[in-house]
């Protein structure tokens, strides 16, 4: 083996540590950046995603807000108007609902409404999703609520490196971004991350495993599940591609259409309820654009159309490898 190591791969971090490092990088690189949210200062936030940042950058740049998501997301919009680049933390998925109004009514529309005079450089980070034995309102997957709003971007990482790179890119892109962090895999294991996170194309899906017979479309914590399912499919003689969407709005249509054309079968996996979920959008897109190239209908393996259940039923409500395999079989047999 030669002496050459992966450039700058200095440390192994888990996803939440990667978020922390990316936030530190943002504060270091961009003097206009600041962080706000509940309890993010000395305590480093409920998930410790901002651990150490107040000490490093001072309580003016990393500050606690009163409890009031509508108020502090509104305040963040005001910070943007003065030329600052705030990154807001919302503690849990459903606590974004009080702020929904600011995000939908103003944040997403500001550039358009002012005829291009003023865009907002705002990132709202939201730990989201189930699988942590937390109850409803602490396990929600609200992506399509935000992904229905032109002007907002919705971005979801699936591992430490994508978390860091996507967060840095989201903060620099000039659009307001709802950055959904799959909290279930916050501490899923560490992987090598670079000293500095380089930017990445924000609207690009990533083929995290290639294959010819079927594409599993997933994002967030479901990518891990899709990869596990792909391994099982491989053993059964089916070569499955796994496409990690990363950007839910806008969608990477090109990668989706390529997957459909090249593998003929597309199966979507998400935790959010099925009704009006992202799977519906993907299926509709494929139907509109490449219906004649599909070898099987696009199926969806999703969460249930119900509030997120209490811990004892959690596993039944979430997609599982078995459910993915069953759906894949239906498509292969079609």
């Amino acid at each position, binding site marked *: 083996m030669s002496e050459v190591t992966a450039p700058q791969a200095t440390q192994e971090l888990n996803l939440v540590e990667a978020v922390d490092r990316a936030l530190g990088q943002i504060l270091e690189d961009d003097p206009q950046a600041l962080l706000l949210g509940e309890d993010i200062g000395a305590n480093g936030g409920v998930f410790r995603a901002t651990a150490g940042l107040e000490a490093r950058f001072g309580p003016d740049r990393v500050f606690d807000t009163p409890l009031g998501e509508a108020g502090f997301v509104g305040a963040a919009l005001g910070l943007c108007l003065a030329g600052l680049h705030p990154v807001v933390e919302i503690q849990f998925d459903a606590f974004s609902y009080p702020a929904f109004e600011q995000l939908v009514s103003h944040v997403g529309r500001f550039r358009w409404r002012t*005829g291009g005079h003023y865009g907002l450089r705002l990132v709202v980070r939201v730990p989201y999703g189930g699988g942590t034995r937390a109850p409803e309102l602490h396990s929600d997957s609200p992506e399509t609520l935000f992904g229905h709003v032109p002007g907002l971007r919705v971005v979801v990482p699936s591992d430490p490196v994508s978390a860091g790179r996507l967060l840095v890119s989201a903060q620099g892109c000039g659009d307001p971004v709802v950055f959904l962090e799959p909290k279930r895999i916050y501490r899923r294991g560490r992987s090598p991350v670079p000293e500095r996170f380089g930017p990445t194309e924000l609207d690009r899906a990533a083929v995290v495993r290639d294959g010819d017979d079927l594409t599993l479309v997933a994002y967030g914590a479901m990518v891990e599940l899709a990869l596990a399912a792909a391994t099982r499919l491989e053993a059964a003689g089916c070569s499955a591609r796994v496409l990690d969407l990363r950007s839910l709005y*806008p969608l990477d249509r090109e990668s989706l259409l390529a997957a459909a054309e090249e593998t003929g079968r597309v199966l979507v996996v998400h935790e959010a309820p099925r009704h009006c979920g992202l799977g519906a959008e993907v299926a509709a897109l494929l139907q509109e654009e490449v219906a004649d190239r599909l070898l099987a209908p696009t199926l969806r393996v999703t969460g249930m159309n119900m509030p997120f259940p209490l811990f004892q039923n959690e596993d039944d409500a979430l997609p599982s490898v078995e459910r993915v395999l069953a759906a894949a079989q239906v498509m292969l047999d079609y």
Partner: protein
Amino acid sequence: MYRQLVLIRRFEEHAAEAYAQAKIGGFLHLYIGEEAVAVGAINAVRETDHLLTHYRDHGYALVRGCDPKACMAELFGREDGLCHGRGGSMHLAEAARHFWGGYAIVGSHIPIGAGMAYAMQYQERDEVVLDFFGDGATGNGIFHEGLSMAALWNLPVIFICENNLYGMGATLAEESPVSEMRIKAEGYTMPSIQCDGMDVLSVYEALGKAAEHCRSGKGPYFVEAMTYRFRGHSMADPELYRDKSEVQRWRVRDPIPSFGDWCVEHGVCSSQELAQINEEVEGEMLEAVAFAEQSPWPDPAEVGRWIYAKPIDPESPARSEGAGAAVPLTSDAGV
């Protein structure tokens, strides 16, 4: 200031006429009767100070110096509008003049003003923020979140409540447990002052005091301007909730002739000069309407523009930007 009072009045009278002729669509909320608040307040502060307002926003834009032609064209939904015909009557905004817009969701801009004020403090800028809203807005929880943050962080923001006795058709008694909104600021230990919103000098004086307070680092200030709108809530208001005689009583206190009289009495100018101002403004407004009428409509292929920093949604007409290709309008255009 007299000219500005007349400017708002005549601008809105012409807008109302155009609305009646269906040249302006959507809603139109007139400020007629309340002009002294915007004029007194904005003249009492610096041009660099920041303004945010509710949807009854034409007056603030005009006093801040936004081009009346562009404002009228915005109401008409035309390309030459202040926001290229995207924002409309309720969302006038001009970043260069530190006029950060009207907001149609009642109360929702109150914390935005607090955030701007945080930035002023953080950036050590000697600028204060003026956050205007109505009595009805104080019933929304977001009002309290905004005041809470402003007081907690000692921010240079002036909250100006235009108490015009009604929130749409709801009377104060129906919408608020207290009839004086400044009482609500007391819970946040915020100093407040009440002024006569029909008297431009009273508002001017109150805002001068409030701005000095904010600028000297003493934190937020609450101003309650007691005022009255002569017209309906919007053009569609049948006004069943109030008596015509009540409106007549308030019209006696019309801020424009009263201030005109004051100017003449104090030798600021002659009544001929006032008449001449009226005439000049009327001429400008005729020009503004003509300008709006001849301004082109936004190109339908471009209605999806400015949704993102770069045109990125392939289904949106924004795709055509630069490429010149005519991409058909789809539902993604958000029209």
